[in-house]
């Protein structure tokens, strides 16, 4: 069974600083996708960044980057130059390449301190 674990229920960061959110997953598959979604108080989940497992290069989207360690089954999210608008719940998600389901972790609540 595929599971996604986010071991940090809450994190905080000073504005303009860098924070890293952790995610590990369990799978026996070799071809899959990984995602980070952001959920602000408005409830709408927004895609932050995505990674294909066969790509060794870590994905980057502006201030957001990932550290993908396939052997360790780790997929952490780094937010640089944190902004007040980054405050939200962040969910890590996994999807097997030919599967249908997206599996989500329990989330990390990020607070940005002005």
């Amino acid at each position: 069974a595929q599971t996604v674990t986010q071991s940090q229920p809450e994190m905080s960061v000073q504005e303009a600083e860098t924070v890293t959110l952790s995610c590990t997953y369990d799978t026996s598959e070799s071809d899959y996708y990984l995602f980070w979604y952001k959920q602000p108080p408005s409830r709408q989940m927004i895609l932050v960044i995505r990674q294909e497992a066969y790509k060794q290069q870590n994905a980057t989207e502006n201030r957001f980057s990932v550290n993908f360690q396939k052997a360790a089954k780790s997929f952490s999210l780094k937010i640089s130059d944190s902004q007040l608008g980054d405050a939200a719940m962040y969910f890590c998600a996994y999807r097997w390449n030919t599967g249908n389901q997206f599996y989500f972790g329990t989330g990390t609540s990020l607070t940005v301190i002005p």
Partner: protein
Amino acid sequence: GAGVSQTPSNKVTEKGKYVELRCDPISGHTALYWYRQSLGQGPEFLIYFQGTGAADDSGLPNDRFFAVRPEGSVSTLKIQRTERGDSAVYLCASSLKGTLSSGANVLTFGAGSRLTVL
């Protein structure tokens, strides 16, 4: 439409009542998902449609839950004889089928329907 639309935004009902939650996906998205998110938890898979058919309904918790997508676009999640434990936010998402590099296989979510069963 431009985004995934879900109605109602909030629904309060009494135990034992029947409710319907509607999802209008992005135009052209053939894949549609329903997820349930309880307080403090991540989204939990309920059902997946590819076109009109339910390709995977393994996440539906019991036979009180049912979902349809008769024309391959709008979907309705139906809950019979609601229980207090059904209280949650019900999220709908849609996606294209294809390669990740093309932008497919990425879920676009609606804002959810918050169901409260008293």
